[in-house]
């Protein structure tokens, strides 16, 4: 049976993890490759590296980071942050990314989704949608949440799928950073509108939030960063909690 995925997001700037840092007592804390390997050992199903600077100098650093992470991580690796062109995406694939996440650039130029999908396959293209409730409707925001777009989140998700996106990474800006729980209404609305998987993001604070988003929210995957702190065993405990409540989870060997 297809399992639901837990995805760890590493926010990286200049090769260092800047948010969601854990294991701070370990040597190499903040090293994305070490963190990714640790999450992998704990049973995470996928890793997202998000470049929060996305500057020109940052791009070369990001490729080096992706290369290092991918050389030791043999589970799916997605990379995002300022991906604006097929060449930029290609550099990330060559470095070892399995998927790239596009956001603002796809809003400005939706054909970019199709171009990357035609060359690398739809499975390699995640369209990230940042959404916020305005006047009772879900509106899309670009440029890391700073610029409002006229698009409706559900309509944009449908269009992204039609243009070749393989997955939707859906972030509730109202919930992001609040630890108040995922926006299950938003997630369910988008998940029901498309055939491709929807990754819920924004608001994770405790295990019950994951249970909610996998049941009421109909999410195929759930993404979080620092919240994987919540207990000593983090991901393994969360998986056991969810599996015990009927959510199909990938069984992994306990970390040693």
């Amino acid at each position, binding site marked *: 049976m297809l399992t639901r995925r837990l995805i760890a997001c590493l926010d990286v700037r200049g090769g260092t993890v800047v948010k969601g840092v854990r294991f701070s007592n370990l040597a190499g804390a903040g090293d994305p490759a070490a963190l990714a390997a640790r999450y992998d050992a704990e049973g995470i199903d996928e890793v997202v590296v998000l470049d929060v600077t996305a500057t020109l100098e940052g791009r070369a650093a990001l490729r080096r980071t992706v290369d290092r992470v*991918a*050389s030791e991580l043999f589970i799916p690796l997605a990379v995002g942050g300022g991906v604006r062109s097929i060449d930029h995406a290609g550099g990330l694939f060559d470095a070892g990314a399995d998927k790239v996440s596009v956001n603002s650039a796809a809003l400005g130029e939706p054909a970019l989704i199709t171009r990357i*999908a035609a060359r690398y396959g739809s499975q390699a293209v995640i369209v990230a949608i940042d959404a916020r409730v305005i006047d009772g409707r879900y509106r899309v925001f670009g440029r890391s949440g700073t610029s409002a777009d006229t698009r409706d989140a559900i309509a944009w998700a449908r269009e992204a799928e039609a243009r070749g996106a393989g997955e939707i990474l859906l972030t509730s800006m109202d919930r992001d950073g609040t630890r108040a729980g995922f926006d299950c209404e938003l997630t369910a609305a988008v998940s029901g509108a498309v055939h491709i998987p929807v990754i819920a993001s924004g608001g994770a604070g405790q295990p019950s939030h994951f249970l909610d988003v996998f049941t009421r929210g109909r999410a195929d995957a759930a993404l979080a960063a620092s919240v994987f702190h919540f207990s000593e065993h983090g991901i393994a405990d969360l998986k056991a909690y969810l599996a015990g409540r009927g959510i199909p989870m990938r069984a992994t060997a306990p970390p040693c």
Partner: protein
Amino acid sequence: MTIALIDYGAGNLASVRKAFAAIGAPLTDVACPADLGRAGGIVIPGVGHFDATAPLQTGWKEAIARRAAESAAILGICLGMQWLFEGSEESSVVSGLGWFRGRCLRLTGDVKVPHVGWNSLNDISPRSRLLTGITGGASMYFTHAYAAPATPAAAARTTHGTTFVSVVERGRVFGTQGHPEKSGGTGLRLLSNFAALARERSC
């Protein structure tokens, strides 16, 4: 002894290279059928639409068949596995290698298609050499909308809406619908098994 990775322009091969490098069996990229040489193993990758295998029509079929006749081990991954069959209902113009009978079919049922994520290998054939050391219920990472038809060469099955053949094996020809290069310890074990098989008769 070399294991050749067929580079026919289909998508991203970095992850496959990195996984084989990690198990101590680095791949040699081969972009031209004449360069298959005496490779002991041949990896056929593939992602996306079945039409993406069109470049394999020109020269590759014969070159791969020649190496297989000389006992090279063959591994098709994802679309590369589907290509080992006669074709796919995804494409009316491009045919497969036809080493396994039947055409690949679109997944159906009350589930999301494409099938994306981790799913389990079931009904593992105890005779499978590719799956040595991998037990039923072990997970692989999948991302596909079409799948192989039923075949006596099935070495494992997976269920998503319907049950499909997720690993195929006959003699020294192997295929895996899931991505071993992205399937953690299970995938690395599978690739190690393949590398050992490729070494077996390559002197």
